[in-house]
């Protein structure tokens, strides 16, 4: 055993020995009971759907296959769903698609834009991204693939060297823009601008203040925004998102909350060009991206403070008119994902999870689940883009 070995063993044991005791019984029971309850609901729902399938599937076969994707969205005038049985006229199961059959179409004009294996044994990672030119999915060796809204580029994460690059999907080339990280070596994940030409990233120095950079996807040129960090911006769980094509947003941290368990009360808005403040959005929680707003801007999907990862699953649909949460989104452990909610009507959205894409109503009830392609044999991080 060499000196590094012995020192490392000491360090790891010393580190573990500093863990403080915690009373986790009540929290684990509460969270565990919720998991049991959610599983029972899912089983009951699946049983109901299976019963209806006996009627629905032959009818579909007679019509010649899968209904048009947009027909499933219910349209802008559709009423919020009130119970699982309200939508049982939906097809019970779709034929399992494959990556060779073209884009995976979903309601609201969405398609599967990318998927990345969550638990791959491959150090480099494995992902797929949709190439609009060839109308095929391209396999890429990265641990994250985040397509731009236009589908021309994708941000890819090199898990070995821990850096983000810009993949030109048509030309299969990657450039690696420099993202300053000061002396900390940390940054939040990048967020594409709505036009897909730039992306914003938050650099998190250990010493000194955070910085927001806006980086041109083509040239790699970056612009550092001068922000007044004396304001109540986020502390931990900080991320930058685009509010609109010229406005960026950061979570507004409640100054009375703990740094390690911050409470958020909406977002601070500032110019993406200059960093000049443009006001605040008051909400009882934080939202992850502009995509979390319904098309009519009445509803917004919020992560309430206790839902910050990886604890809980209190992702609410907040009604800005009645000022109340009208439903909680189903399913996955963890918090809301900046790229997991895709509205396809004013009252329905698609939620991506590790194995499926679900059509969900305002009340959080799953209306329909879309299977992932056969090639996605393991859990995937799926991101949708507009067709």
């Amino acid at each position: 055993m060499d000196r590094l070995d012995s020192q490392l063993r000491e360090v790891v044991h010393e580190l573990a020995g500093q863990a403080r005791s915690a009373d986790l019984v009540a929290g684990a029971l509460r969270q565990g009971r919720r998991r049991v309850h959610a599983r029972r609901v899912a089983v009951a729902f699946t049983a109901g759907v299976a019963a209806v399938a006996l009627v629905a599937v032959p009818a579909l076969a007679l019509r010649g296959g899968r209904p048009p994707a947009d027909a499933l969205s219910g349209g802008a005038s559709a009423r919020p769903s009130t119970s699982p049985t309200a939508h049982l006229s939906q097809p019970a199961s779709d034929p399992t698609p494959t990556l060779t059959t073209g884009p995976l179409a979903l309601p609201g004009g969405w398609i599967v834009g990318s998927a990345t294996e969550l638990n791959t044994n491959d150090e480099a990672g494995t992902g797929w991204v949709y190439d609009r030119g060839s109308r095929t999915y391209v396999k890429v060796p990265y641990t994250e693939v985040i397509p731009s809204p236009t589908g021309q580029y994708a941000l890819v994460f090199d898990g070995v060297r821990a850096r983000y690059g810009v993949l030109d999907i048509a030309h299969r080339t990657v450039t690696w823009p420099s993202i300053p990280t000061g002396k900390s070596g940390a940054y939040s994940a990048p967020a594409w601008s709505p036009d897909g030409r730039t992306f914003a990233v938050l650099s998190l120095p250990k010493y000194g203040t955070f910085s927001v950079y806006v980086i041109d996807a083509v040239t790699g040129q970056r612009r550092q925004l001068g922000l007044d960090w004396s304001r109540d911006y986020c502390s931990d769980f900080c991320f930058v998102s685009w509010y609109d094509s010229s406005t960026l947003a950061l979570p507004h941290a409640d100054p009375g909350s703990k740094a390690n368990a911050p409470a958020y009360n909406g977002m601070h808005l500032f110019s993406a060009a200059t960093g000049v403040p443009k006001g605040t959005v008051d909400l009882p929680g934080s939202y992850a991206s502009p995509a979390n707003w319904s098309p009519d801007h009445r509803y917004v999907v919020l992560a309430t403070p206790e839902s910050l990862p990886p604890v809980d699953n209190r992702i609410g649909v907040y009604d800005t008119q009645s000022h109340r949460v009208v439903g909680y989104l189903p399913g996955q452990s963890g918090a809301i994902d900046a790229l997991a909610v895709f509205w396809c009507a004013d009252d329905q959205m698609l939620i991506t999870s590790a194995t499926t894409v679900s059509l969900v109503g305002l009340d959080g009830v799953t209306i329909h689940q879309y299977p992932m392609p056969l090639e996605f044999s393991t859990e995937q991080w799926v991101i949708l883009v507009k067709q």
Partner: protein
Amino acid sequence: VDAAAEREFTEFVIARTHALMRVAYALTGGDQYAAEDLLQAALAKAFARWPHIRGDAEPYLKKIIYHDYVSWWRRWRHRRETPVEFLPEPASPTVPTDHSDLRLVLREALASLPPRQRAVLVLRYLEDLSTDEVAALLGCRPGTVASQANRALAKLRTQFVEASQQTADTTTIGAGQ
């Protein structure tokens, strides 16, 4: 999960929380809140399956913790900080001067490793597991474990050697004064 199973689960949590916290704490690089979150989520998963767990539940819990730690970090990375390739430069004037400082450098270097590499080292140095045992627990090939460990140790060694050299230089300067 009936009342008896719930009582049994509660007793298990009370008895084994601290041992499991040690693992979660080491994995999260000494972040008490993140360790509690990680462990609580793992306990909740175990509770939902408690009637089906036979024998000692602790190995099962540890498996959930390691898996959740690696996959959670990947999935939610974009909501959190992403460690990058290069390690933090120690802020002046914290040039390591003795072995406790060297351990601090090593601890920071460990915290900056990608999660799978850190998990491999924690399993190896805290839990004293063999390469095959680590591979079985993480659900990957032994070769993958070996290469992850090699990469991680190479990074740590670079930092450690540099810090050791600085310590030696400091000692020499001190001795000459």
